[in-house]
């Protein structure tokens, strides 16, 4: 009988040692939301108005990084990621954008966003995402004095100052 017990214990022990489950973050898990911008007609603010050949670059210190999905498209709505390491994001929006031999061409408009990031716990596997509150938008970097000159964007409106999902536009841009 004792022999049976030993064998039984050894078998069960080896079973459980090999029984650890890995936790992976499922791709369907909602991730940190992007900022949704809708473009509206400056003369009729209820009407959507597509931007012709829009290109958007993120300004990371002195580097310009093209957002791959917004590379000269005609669109009236875009989603752009906000920066998580600091609570400020800078972008350059180009209308009639083209890239010829590494030189950016088009009408440039600097957009500056300020917000507070709020960490939201999701799960053991996915950890935390960021939501953003107290969102405000400027037509240029307010730390650099002077009004923007010759920009194609005429105004902004923050529709929802809280970015916690991508269900609707957070910001309208008039042009």
């Amino acid at each position: 009988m004792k022999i049976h017990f030993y064998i039984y214990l050894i078998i069960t022990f080896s079973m459980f040692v090999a029984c650890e489950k890995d936790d992976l973050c499922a791709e369907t898990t909602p991730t940190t939301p992007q900022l949704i911008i809708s473009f509206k007609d400056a003369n009729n603010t209820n009407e959507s108005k597509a931007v012709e050949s829009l290109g958007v670059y993120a300004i990371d210190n002195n580097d310009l990084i093209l957002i791959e999905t917004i590379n000269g498209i005609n669109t009236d709505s875009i989603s752009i990621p906000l920066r998580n390491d600091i609570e400020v994001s800078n972008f350059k929006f180009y209308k009639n954008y083209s890239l010829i031999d590494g030189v950016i061409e088009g009408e440039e408009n600097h957009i500056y966003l300020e917000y507070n990031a709020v960490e939201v716990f999701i799960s053991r596997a996915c950890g935390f995402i960021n939501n953003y509150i107290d969102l405000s938008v400027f037509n240029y970097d307010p730390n650099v004095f002077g009004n923007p000159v010759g920009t194609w964007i005429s105004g902004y409106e923050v529709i929802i100052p809280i970015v916690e999902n991508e269900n609707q536009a957070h910001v309208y841009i008039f042009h």
Partner: protein
Amino acid sequence: MFIFFTRILLVFLIPVTIFSQENIVSTDSVTQKQKYGLRIGLDVNKLVNSSISNNYDGFELNADYRISNKLYIASEIGLINNTEDEEYLNFTTKGTYIKSGIDYNMYTNWLDMQNMIFAGFRIGYSDFDQIINNYTIYDTNNQIWGQSFINTPINNKDLSSLWVELIIGVKAEIFNNLFLGFNLEVKKMINSEIKNNIQNMYVPGFNKTFEGSSFGVGFGYKLSYLIPIVKK
């Protein structure tokens, strides 16, 4: 998960078949004096894990006391310091726990042996801290700005959890009064206090918690010594 439960089923089918024949023998044996007493021990599995893993330190003392032919009062106390490294975060749980309940011996012993195939229940309680040591913000659109890694710990201190568990297992006398046992536990969380909206991902004594479920599992490898007090 399915494989896991299949294994649990298998584990409990094995001892049933092993002991079924010997029960017949015990029916025509002479009634013998039975040992009653306090059996104290420790969880070998936690000691082994503590020695092989840098991320785990655990220690558990357990005791049971025979109150009738079939019933034992049983209790475990332990302390655990457990760190887990996940894809997007690394966290440490440290704290103590106590579990108390009753074991029912389903095995009819031959002569004065005190071997057990038992089922029982426990009520468990744990006091613990959960510290998120570091984490990376989960953002699948991070190609532009890069990943944001945060090294400032989030301390959730003085948390507590209360749960119940069903326990099933065996204890066999391997030398005189020295027992080796194995048991499985299925747990159901009753109340787990959280802070900062962060799930308690591990609870000492309860083990890992699962997202969207209040159930948990565990097992123990117990070495214990019987201090005989009375013979009936």
